[in-house]
């Protein structure tokens, strides 16, 4: 069974807040849900499928379904960290194609900024039953130094430079200047990235994404419903998901699970990376973008540093316009999870509703990709390919 053409993204909403000290996480989930439904021209009563992940408070989808008082035929709670929302777009399309629901709501929200979470520089608590816990907990692996190890190896193996990493941030900042909601709207230079404080060698502060409160939501519907709605239809034509781990101690940290999720999604969509007009690429760190761009097939493995340099990711001048909202590096990284905002900006591009300064001309095919958890140990990935009708 293919999901190609079986479901459409009808609603998309990114919460404008980046700092929400006076709201609860559940409240933010509900606000983004209502925002996406309003965008679609649907109501809460139309929702019969609910999809969420580890940021949703409560056991599985039940607490948030109760809070929003949803009446559901289908629910899905899948935890793949920041990749979850791109992955849930695929699951929503599958559920719709299988007749399990008609209107699927996907939500993300969180408040790491208000809660003072040391998102990247402190080890995250882990379940002692995780089988790797005895072998890792003493070493203080964090989000930042884990991704930094991948960058260090990529530099060693392929000659990637700090300046090439910096170009990813520079491109994101060129886009963020046009986003009134962006946390970091100032344009930065390669020199400024390299002069920012070292967090974990070789990643500087400006190689790291922002920590923000907020959230986002998507509404995925079957084609018959999409046809009745007023918003420009965004057809889901390919999805892929994958998990990569340390393979019992035999691994290459310069490759991510995108090397498997990408080809699966492209095969289902029946297109190639060269057909993509716009790409939302998860940018937890600058190195994340380079590795995923290679793995998704936009350039050869090891050539990502050269590919992203000299503004090649900047809309209007580069070959692969990416993260035109400013991405996680400059705009928003709600709940420390990036793939929701990745899908939302791809939807804006396909609708022709991105900021005019960054809107890609004739944007008919777009990709959104997310990576979740730890690139230096075990992670998940999800790719979504969408088409404007």
């Amino acid at each position: 069974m293919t999901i190609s053409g079986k479901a459409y993204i009808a609603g998309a909403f990114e919460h404008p807040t980046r700092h929400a000290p006076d709201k609860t996480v559940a409240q933010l989930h509900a606000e983004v849900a209502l925002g996406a439904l309003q965008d679609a021209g649907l109501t809460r009563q139309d929702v019969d499928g609910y999809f969420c992940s580890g940021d949703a408070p409560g056991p599985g989808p039940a607490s948030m379904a109760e809070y929003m008082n949803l009446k559901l035929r289908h629910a899905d709670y899948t935890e793949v960290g920041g990749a979850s929302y791109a992955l849930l777009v695929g699951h929503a399309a599958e559920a719709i194609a299988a007749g399990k629901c008609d209107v699927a709501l996907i939500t993300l929200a969180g408040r790491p900024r208000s809660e003072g979470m040391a998102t990247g520089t402190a080890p995250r608590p882990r379940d002692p039953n995780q089988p790797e816990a005895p072998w890792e907990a003493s070493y203080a692996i964090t989000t930042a130094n884990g991704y930094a190890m991948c960058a260090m190896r990529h530099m060693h193996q392929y000659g990637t430079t700090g300046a090439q990493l910096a170009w990813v941030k520079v491109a994101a900042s060129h886009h963020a200047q046009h986003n009134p909601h962006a946390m970091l709207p100032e344009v930065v230079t390669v020199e400024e990235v390299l002069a920012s404080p070292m967090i974990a060698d070789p990643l500087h502060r400006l190689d790291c994404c922002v920590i923000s409160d907020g959230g986002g939501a998507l509404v995925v519907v079957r084609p018959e419903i999409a046809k009745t709605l007023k918003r420009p239809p965004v057809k889901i034509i390919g999805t892929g998901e994958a998990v990569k781990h340390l393979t019992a101690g035999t691994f290459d940290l310069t490759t991510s699970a995108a090397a498997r999720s990408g080809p699966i999604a492209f095969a289902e969509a029946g297109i190639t990376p060269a057909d993509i007009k716009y790409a939302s690429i998860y940018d937890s760190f600058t190195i994340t973008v380079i590795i995923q761009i290679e793995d998704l097939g936009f350039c050869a493995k090891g050539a990502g540093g050269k590919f992203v340099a000299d503004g090649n990711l900047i809309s209007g001048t580069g070959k692969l316009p990416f993260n035109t909202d400013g991405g996680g590096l400059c705009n928003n990284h709600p709940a420390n999870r990036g793939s929701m905002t990745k899908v939302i900006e791809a939807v804006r591009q396909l609708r022709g509703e991105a900021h005019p300064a960054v809107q890609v001309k004739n944007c008919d095919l777009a990709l959104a990709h997310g990576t979740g958890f730890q690139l230096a140990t075990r992670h998940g990935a999800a790719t979504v390919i969408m088409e404007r009708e």
Partner: protein
Amino acid sequence: MARKLTPPVVTAESKAFFEAARSGRFVIPFCTACGKAHWYPRAICPFCASDAVEWRPASGNGTIYTFSVMRRVKEPYAIAHVTLAEGPTMLTNLVDCDFDTLRIGQAVAVVFQETEGGAPVPMFKPV
């Protein structure tokens, strides 16, 4: 050593390793069915699914596969993956060294480090 280390979780699958560690012995899991060592240690071989896994003394020698010095903390430390002479690559820390001279491919040897009220854990220092 100033940095306080979180003690390892001792489980049914990790107990023998940390008992050996307490007496300064570095052992790794070896599958007698397929002849391969693996990491992290499991009771069931991740390569061939046999349960004929036994602990064998390891040389403690390895090379740095990759590393990163965490700078934005009170006490900087070096996280690393080290490839053991016996084959598998393991997550660890690099200690007893000038962080600024570390490089990928460098030879290192195991050195056990005390943890806060728990068993010592294997870390590595340049040789």
